[in-house]
C-alpha cells in the first residue's frame, strides 16, 4: 500500500489541547512524523514581570489548571529563597498536603483520559467519579476545586482545623480502597494490557538521552524524582518511596502513576497526623534583593523549573518557566516510531501532555502585524551562534 500523510491535530478528538502532528503511514505502520507545538501562546512570563509578587501568584497559578498548586508553590519558595525567608513548618506541611492531593487528582484524571483514548469509557467514568472525592476534600480545604490560591509569599492563607482533618482522613480511606480496584483493573484486564503493553517503547538509554522527566522517565527505569534527589518543603521528613517500573512502555507509565497515587495517599495521611502546631504565615519584605534563583519542584508530570531574577524591586525582572511536558515531547517522537495508527492517541496521552504547561515561543512584529515561529533547528543554530559570539564557547555542530 502506498504512503499517506495524515494530520492529527491541531483539532482532533484524541487531543485535549492543540498540538499538530503530520504522520506519514504505510498501511497501519508509522514511517515518520513531524511535531508542531507552537499554538496558543499566552504571554504569561511578560504578565508576571508587570505585577508584584503577591499579585503575580494568581497569574502563575493559572499557567495550568491541573498542576496549579505546583506552579504557585514553586514560585513562592523561589521568592522566599531570594528574600532569605523561611516559611514556618506548619505552612510547609500544609503546602505538602495540598500538593500531594493535587497529585492524586491529576493521576486519577490521567487514568480516565487514558481509558477514553483506548476506547474503555467505563474506566473513564469510574475514575472521574472517584476523583470527585479528592475535589471535595480540596474544596473544603481551600474553597475552590481548582486554582486553590493557598499560597502567599511567606506561608499559606488558610489553616486546617480538626473538622477538615477528620473529613479528609475518612475520605482518603475510601479512596485507598478504590485505588486498589483500579490497579487491579489496569494490570489484569486482558484488553487493557493488549492496548497498553508493548506500545510506545522508550528504552532506558533513550529516556535519559532525550531528557524525559516524571513518570515517563520512571516508567523506563530511570530513577529521577526531585522530591528524593533534592528535597524541598518537608519531603526529607515524610517517608515515601520512588516508584519505578522496568516495562519501558505505556503499561510501565501506568503502573508508575498508579503506584504514585498509593504513595501520595500514604504521605497525606502521615502529614495530616503529624501536623506541627504554629503559625501559618511570616511577614516578608516588600522588595526582593538582586539575584537569581532556580527553583525545582516535582509536579505530577515531572520536574518543573522556575527561574526568577530579582533586581531590588517589588516585581520580578525576568521570569522563565521550563515545564515538564516540554521535556517529554521528544520522547513521543521516539516512542511512535514503528507503531500503528491505533497507538497514536495512547502514546501521546502517556506523557500526560498539558499544552498549557508547555513553554512556547513566538515572534511578534507589531509594526507589520506579523507573527512567526522557529523550528528546532533554527533555534539550535541561533543558540550555537550566540554562545560563540558572546561567550566564546563553541558547542560543536
Amino acid at each position, binding site marked *: 500500500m502506498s504512503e499517506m500523510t495524515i494530520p492529527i491535530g491541531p483539532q482532533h478528538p484524541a487531543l485535549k489541547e492543540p498540538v499538530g502532528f503530520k504522520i506519514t503511514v504505510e498501511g497501519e505502520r508509522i514511517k515518520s512524523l513531524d511535531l508542531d507545538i507552537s499554538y496558543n501562546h499566552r504571554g504569561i512570563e511578560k504578565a508576571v514581570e508587570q505585577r508584584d509578587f503577591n499579585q503575580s501568584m494568581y497569574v502563575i497559578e493559572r499557567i495550568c489548571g491541573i498542576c496549579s498548586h505546583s506552579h504557585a508553590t514553586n514560585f513562592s519558595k523561589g521568592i522566599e529563597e531570594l528574600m532569605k525567608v523561611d516559611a514556618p513548618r506548619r505552612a510547609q506541611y500544609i503546602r505538602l498536603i495540598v500538593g500531594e492531593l493535587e497529585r492524586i487528582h491529576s493521576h486519577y484524571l490521567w487514568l480516565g483520559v487514558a481509558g477514553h483514548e483506548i476506547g474503555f*469509557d467505563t474506566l473513564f467514568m469510574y475514575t472521574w467519579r472517584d476523583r470527585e472525592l479528592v475535589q471535595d476534600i480540596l474544596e473544603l480545604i481551600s474553597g475552590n476545586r481548582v486554582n486553590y490560591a493557598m499560597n502567599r509569599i511567606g506561608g499559606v492563607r488558610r489553616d486546617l482545623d480538626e473538622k477538615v482533618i477528620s473529613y479528609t482522613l475518612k475520605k482518603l480511606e475510601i479512596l485507598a480502597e478504590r485505588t486498589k480496584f483500579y490497579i487491579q483493573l489496569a494490570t489484569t484486564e486482558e484488553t487493557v494490557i493488549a492496548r497498553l503493553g508493548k506500545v510506545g517503547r522508550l528504552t532506558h538509554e533513550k529516556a535519559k538521552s532525550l531528557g524525559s522527566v516524571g513518570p515517563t522517565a520512571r516508567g523506563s527505569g530511570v530513577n529521577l524524582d526531585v522530591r528524593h534527589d533534592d528535597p524541598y518543603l518537608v519531603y526529607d521528613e515524610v517517608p515515601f518511596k520512588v516508584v519505578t517500573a522496568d516495562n519501558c512502555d505505556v503499561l510501565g507509565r501506568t503502573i508508575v502513576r498508579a503506584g504514585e497515587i498509593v504513595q501520595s495517599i500514604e504521605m497525606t495521611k502521615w502529614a495530616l497526623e503529624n501536623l506541627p502546631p504554629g503559625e501559618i504565615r511570616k511577614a516578608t519584605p516588600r522588595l526582593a534583593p538582586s539575584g537569581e534563583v532556580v527553583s525545582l519542584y516535582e509536579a505530577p508530570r515531572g520536574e518543573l523549573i522556575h527561574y526568577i531574577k530579582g533586581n531590588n524591586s517589588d516585581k520580578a525582572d525576568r521570569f522563565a518557566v521550563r515545564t515538564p511536558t516540554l521535556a517529554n515531547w521528544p520522547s513521543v517522537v521516539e516512542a511512535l516510531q514503528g507503531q500503528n495508527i*491505533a497507538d497514536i492517541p495512547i502514546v501521546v496521552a502517556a506523557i500526560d501532555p498539558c499544552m498549557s504547561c508547555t513553554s512556547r515561543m513566538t515572534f511578534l512584529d507589531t509594526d507589520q502585524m506579523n507573527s512567526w515561529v522557529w523550528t528546532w533547528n533554527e533555534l539550535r543554530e541561533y543558540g550555537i551562534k550566540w554562545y560563540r559570539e558572546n561567550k566564546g564557547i563553541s558547542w560543536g555542530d
Partner: protein
Amino acid sequence: MIELDVLLVLAYVLVFPGFIFLFGYSFFAEWFDRKMYAKMQNRVGPPLIQPFADFLKLLTKEDITPEKVEKVPYSLLPILAFAAIATAFVYIPVFVTTTPIGFQGDLLLVLYMLTLPTILLFLVGWYSRNIFATIGAYRAVSQLFVYEVPLFIVALGPALWAGSWSISDIVSFQQSHYCLFLIQPLGFIVAIMCLQAKLERIPFDIPEAETEIVGGPLVEYSGRKLAMFRISTDMLMVVGSALIVVLYLGGPSVGFSLESLHIVVQAIIGFLAFLVKTVFIIFLLSFIRAAFARLRIDQMTNFGWKWLASLAFIQIFIIIGLRVVMA
C-alpha cells in the same frame, strides 16, 4: 404456511412487523442499549425519546456534499444499506412461528443481506475521498474477513440440527422440541461475539474509532444521509439480535404448546416472548460494550482466527458427530 392475500402481505411487510415496527423498535433498542450502558457506568442515561429526537435533529441539519465526490453513489449508498437491512427483517418470525413469505433457504438470504451494509460502508469510505474515511474503510473490510466465517458457521449449526434451511422451520422445531441454545452453547457465545463485531461496537469498534480516525468511513456525511446510516445501525442491531433469538432461543415460541388458546392470544404471547428475548440479547451486547477496551486491528484478527473461528469449527464438528451417532 398461512394463506393470505396480497393486501395482508403488504401490511405485514410495511407496517407490522415490517418496516414501521422495525423503525420504532430500533429506536427503543438504541435507547435500551444507551440506558444500560449508562447504568453500568453509574450514570443516568438518556430519556426514552432521545434516539427519536437525535434522528429528527439530524434530518433538519444541512446536508453538505464535498465537491469532488461522485454524487450518485455518495447519495445512493445510505438508502441501499437501509433497504438491505429492512428487507432482511421480514423473513424473521416475530409473533407466530412461521412467516407468510418464508421459503427454503431464506436463512442464507438473511445472512447475505446482513453482509451488505459492511460492504456498502467500505464503498462509502472509498467514495468520500477523505483520508480518515479511507482508513476506516479498509479497516471495516479487514474486520469483515475475520468475523464472517465464524458467523456463517454458527448460523449453519441450528440449520443442521433442525434439518432445514428455512428460518420458520427452525423456529417450529424449537417450539416442539427444545431451545437450540441448550445443545449448542458454544455456538451461542460465538454468535454473540460475531454480532458485536458486525455491529462495530466496542471491543470491535475499529472502523469507527473516535479517538483515532475521527469518524471512520462516515466522517464526511451529515444531515439526512447520516440519519439514514444511524438508523441503519440501530436496525442492524435489532435484526442481528432477532436472528440469534430465532436460531438459538426459539424465537416467538414459549416452552409449551399454545394450541389450546385463541389465535390472537397465541400471537400476543409469542410477540411478548420475542420482545423479552431480543431485549435480553441487547442487554448482553451492552454489557460486552461496557466491559472491554477497543482492540487494534491486528489484535482483532488474532483473536478472531484463534478463538472465534476455532470455537465455531469445534461446535460444528460436535453437531455433525452427534447427528451421525444419533442416525
